[in-house]
């Protein structure tokens, strides 16, 4: 119950959490492992490990490119679970596997749940497996001790918010804006309203993502959500630093900057 414990601790400490997304195998599997350890060291509260998939239709260009790099470097669902298994002893933060449905269905939901649990995964978010399609999936994950995390969007009706909070566990992931993943200059205007709408139905922790790229965004979101998710901006940082020998230092520095401690070197991120 690492996820529940983490959010309980965040609430006790009265601070918002930082959830990071990176693609497993980007820029390659060994450095992907180092990045996950570095994110944990730098203070990320939850690590989302993205499974590369050939057809990432909910992702913008930054994560599409990361996916292509990861697939070229041997990334896959199996490799992602091995990666989690490898870093788990060195990482305190909960780990959430973020995947499209097909790799999981191809492995088989039972086999996936068993392997994910054995690897030390804490929760699973399947991007194109909405509540209506996730019945058996959720039950199997639950039996294996894994949280099923559902996404909620500005288009989600109140009835479905209630259903997601009944069926989901760990936390709920609010999508701050319509569209695909990608860093933006500001937090979406409807983000706070979405979080308040979700709060009206559940006491489950809420992480808010899509478009968050700067410490001011993290702080702004932290005022009403339990955590902010940073994905594309971090993936861009990794992409632009991947040829450099101090990739890991830059990732650490970037996460500390997001958390409001110090400035990263170089130009500000615009994606």
């Amino acid at each position, binding site marked *: 119950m690492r996820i529940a414990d983490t959010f309980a601790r965040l609430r006790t400490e009265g601070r918002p959490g930082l959830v990071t997304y990176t693609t497993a195998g980007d820029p390659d599997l060994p450095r992907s492992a180092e990045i996950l350890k570095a994110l944990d060291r730098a203070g990320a509260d939850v690590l989302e490990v993205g499974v590369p998939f050939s057809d990432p239709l909910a992702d913008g260009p930054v994560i599409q490119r990361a996916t292509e790099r990861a697939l070229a470097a041997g990334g896959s669902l199996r490799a992602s679970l091995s990666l989690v298994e490898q870093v788990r002893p060195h990482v305190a933060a909960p780990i959430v596997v973020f995947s499209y449905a097909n790799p999981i269905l191809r492995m088989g939901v039972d086999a996936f749940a068993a392997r994910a649990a054995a690897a030390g995964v804490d929760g699973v978010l399947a991007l194109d497996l909405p509540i209506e399609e996730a019945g058996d999936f959720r039950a199997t994950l639950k039996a294996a001790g894994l949280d099923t995390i559902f996404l909620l969007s500005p*288009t989600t009706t109140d009835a479905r918010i209630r259903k997601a909070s009944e069926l989901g566990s760990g936390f709920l992931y609010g*999508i701050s804006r319509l569209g695909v993943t990608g860093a933006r200059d500001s937090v979406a205007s409807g983000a706070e309203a979405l979080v308040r709408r979700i709060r009206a139905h559940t006491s489950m922790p809420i992480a808010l993502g899509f478009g968050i790229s700067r410490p001011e965004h993290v702080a702004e979101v932290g005022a009403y959500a339990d955590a902010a998710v940073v994905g594309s901006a971090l993936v861009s940082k990794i992409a632009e630093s991947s040829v450099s020998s101090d990739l890991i230092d830059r990732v650490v520095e970037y996460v500390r900057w997001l958390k409001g401690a110090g400035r990263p070197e170089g130009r500000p991120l615009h994606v």
Partner: protein
Amino acid sequence: MGPHAKYKTMTATPSVTRRDPDARGYFGEFGGRYVPETLVEPVEALERAYLEVRDDPAFAAELNRLFKHYVGRPTPVYETSRLAEAAGGARIFLKREDLTHTGAHKINNALGQALLASRMGKRRIVAETGAGQHGVASATACALLGLECHVYMGAEDMDRQALNVFRMRLLGADVCRVDAGSRTLKDAINEAMRDWVTNVSDTYYLLGSVLGPHPYPLMVREFQSVIGREARAQILELAGRLPDAIVACVGGGSNAIGMFDAFIDDKAVRLIGVEAGGDRIIRGRHAARFAGGSAGVLQGTRTFVLQDEDGNIELTHSISAGLDYAAVGPEHAWLRAIGRAEYAHVTDAGALDAFQTLARLEGILPALESAHAVAYAQRVAKELGPSGIVLVNLSGRGDKDVNTVEKALDARQAAESL
């Protein structure tokens, strides 16, 4: 045409009496609604809007008026003479969807959905296209109804279907080049879905085949089912009986479903879908999902998919852009599972031969997609013998393909002269 044929109910749902998927959009174990959260509510709203117009006589009257006066329906059924003679067996009839306005069956669905979009108050249309026929049909429907049209098309397809790209632009559509992935139809669908999820409040996604999340496979089938309704009446009149076999090419499978639908309950009629065999059935060099695929989820639906052991979608190849796609419509997967339809494949070379044969023997240039069906129909005709009847859905005309065919024939000649 007469009123809708009534079919036995497959699964009881309150809103429908026809042979429909269940309430969650499943044909047996295929179909469903595997979409990102943001699209769940829009897809449900689309389903509600569609079910409303489906039973609205005014909507049907408007669509039928366009079918008759704008599209040129009913399209004829034509009995070949020299083709049948060359095949050496059964009588071969062609359902001439190539004679529709814009030259392919795609216009039936594009008009239906564009009318629905107008009803829903959506003025901005996005569509994907492979061969360009659905893109042209969408651009045409949007021009007719005064809607804004954006067509996503893979870069490779834009190169091999340059004529259709120009046609779409002439019709006022914005053609968006997609450089991701395999740069073909699959990637165009990804990009169209990304556009839709971003602009969902004012945008309608006009999907071109019996693919994607429910209700698309149902809705597109219903708009295309005019093909089979007409053809069934026409063949009864011309031949005095139902055909022994119906042959149609299957990319996503909308022309095939549109033809098969009226014959589903005619159990003696063999329904044969023809997939693209490409070079031959080796990984990455074909698009025959039933020959090399397995059950999986792609772009909103659970169906037969060409995928690797990690669940990544494999590259596909076909000489015809419209069949060059890694998944097949879920209703086809179901019809195959229950044994009601059978599926075969024809290679690039076989399609090329049929293209030339039909041109020379009947004076008809078929689309390369449809040429796959013609090729297989010749085989079936021979097997059936002189007493048999084969009905082929000639889904589109081949003008768009003449450059591709010229290149392929040059390459063949070069190879033979070595």
